[in-house]
């Protein structure tokens, strides 16, 4: 037993994942995320495709010591269950989620300055991160039970914890642009971020994200690609952009799921991996014939960007909030009334990016 009780869960998770790795053929994948090298060790093939399609655009053949190491394993295909103590913990979390989990799914018992830990009840995903070693263990009970949203934005908690010391923060935002400038689209669900970002592919704009991306303050505000996924809310959304239908991977989705696609598999040349940030735009669906772009306040933009990001991403804290506040103070902010003509709406963004990138 470790003398440091805070590391016991970590030690147990390492022991379990080593057993899983020994029972399978390990598979390694490397990615350059925010310009930093992350190496993923998979215990067997079951989780490789489901969890790497969304970040395929960041794949690298970089060797050498990674900045982040993530061990990924599941019990269903490796035949290796969680050890009894961890199983008891997970069972307790299912039995008492409101007591043992924070609203951001953090396991309060295990969380401290060194260790971050979350459990996703719906996905049955247990994540533990060692901030000192920059090493994470990501356990899935059954790959077949992984929901679409986990496949669409995998490892977001680990990435957020890992990237924060690099002054990179994940945010709930879409982003489109070109290599010399990009804009964030932010706001709560239903505001039109994803639809507008996907519609931008009909213009000269390139695609960074539709749901989660990252911003860096290390050297001027910059947006960074994390996931190459796109999502459409329902049949109506898909009917308005039917050209995406062949790209959808979950056409047989249940009613509450969104349609999911991986843009790296269909239009890799339209993906923008990083760009200077020029503005923040708050889209909203409006009863207007033509789209309308108007300046809005930094405080309105902060209220649209910060809560939705911070509530979804463990690791976001006061420092993250301060960085977001600095971002909205620094960049021009706009409200965009989106018209039913999606291409016309996207062209407004195209013009905005061109104007701001020229300055």
């Amino acid at each position, binding site marked *: 037993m470790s003398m440091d009780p805070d590391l016991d869960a970590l030690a147990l998770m390492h022991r379990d994942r080593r057993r899983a790795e020994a029972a399978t053929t390990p598979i390694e994948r490397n990615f350059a995320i925010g310009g930093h090298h992350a190496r993923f060790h998979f215990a067997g093939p079951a989780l490789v495709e489901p969890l790497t399609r969304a970040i395929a655009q960041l794949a690298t053949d970089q060797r050498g010591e990674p900045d982040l190491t993530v061990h990924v394993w599941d019990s269903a295909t490796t035949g290796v269950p969680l050890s009894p103590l961890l199983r008891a913990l997970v069972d307790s979390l299912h039995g008492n989620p409101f007591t043992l989990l924070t609203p951001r799914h953090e396991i309060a018992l295990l969380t401290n300055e060194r260790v971050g830990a979350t459990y996703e009840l719906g996905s049955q995903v247990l994540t533990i991160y060692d901030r000192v070693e920059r090493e994470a263990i990501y356990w899935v009970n059954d790959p077949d039970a992984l929901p679409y949203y986990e496949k669409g934005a995998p490892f977001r908690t680990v990435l957020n914890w890992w990237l924060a010391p690099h002054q990179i923060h994940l945010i709930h935002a879409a982003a489109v642009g070109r290599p010399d400038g990009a804009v964030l689209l932010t706001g709560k669900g239903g505001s039109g971020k994803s639809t507008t970002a996907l519609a931008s592919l009909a213009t000269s704009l390139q695609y960074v994200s539709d749901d989660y991306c990252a911003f860096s303050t290390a050297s001027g505000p910059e947006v960074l690609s994390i996931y190459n996924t796109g999502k459409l809310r329902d049949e109506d959304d898909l009917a308005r952009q039917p050209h995406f239908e062949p790209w959808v991977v979950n056409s047989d989705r249940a009613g509450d799921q969104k349609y999911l696609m991986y843009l790296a598999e269909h239009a890799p040349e339209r993906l923008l991996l990083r760009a200077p940030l020029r503005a923040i735009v708050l889209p909203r669906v409006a009863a207007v014939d033509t789209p309308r772009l108007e300046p809005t306040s930094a405080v309105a933009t902060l209220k649209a960007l910060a*809560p939705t990001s911070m509530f979804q991403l463990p690791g976001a*804290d006061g420092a993250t909030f301060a960085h977001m506040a600095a971002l909205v103070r620094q960049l021009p902010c706009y409200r965009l009334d989106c018209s039913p003509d999606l291409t016309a709406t996207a062209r407004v963004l195209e013009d905005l990016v061109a104007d701001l990138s020229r300055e």
Partner: protein
Amino acid sequence: MFLQINTPNVVHEAIEGEVVIVNLEKGLYFSIDGVGAALWTRVAAGHSIDELRGWFGDTFAAADNAAADIETFLEQLRSNDLVTDSDSAPETDGTEPSAPPDSYAPPALEVYSDMEELLLLDPIHEVSDEAGWPNAPA
């Protein structure tokens, strides 16, 4: 007696004369403008409750219900778990007191509870409008 902001779960930023506060534990966020924003920045700067009352009374001497208004506001901060009473001076984050507005309106805390849709990622959580998220079903 002082008011300690409930960090690290409560984070705040003053911007354009308005204060935005996020309670990461409750899933609620708030905004305060005008008179309330100036008062909050003084809370964040570590002023004692007596100092807050004194400044408020001096600055808004002409306001009819200033004494009652500040108490109502401070109680709103407490009831939303943004601050806790403390006998000792709190650690501060360098927030500077902001200038009060020219005209008086009772300080008010605007509460936003519209983050429920985020919980759709995990359908087991349930939310009540009053208490934020998540709260055990009755």
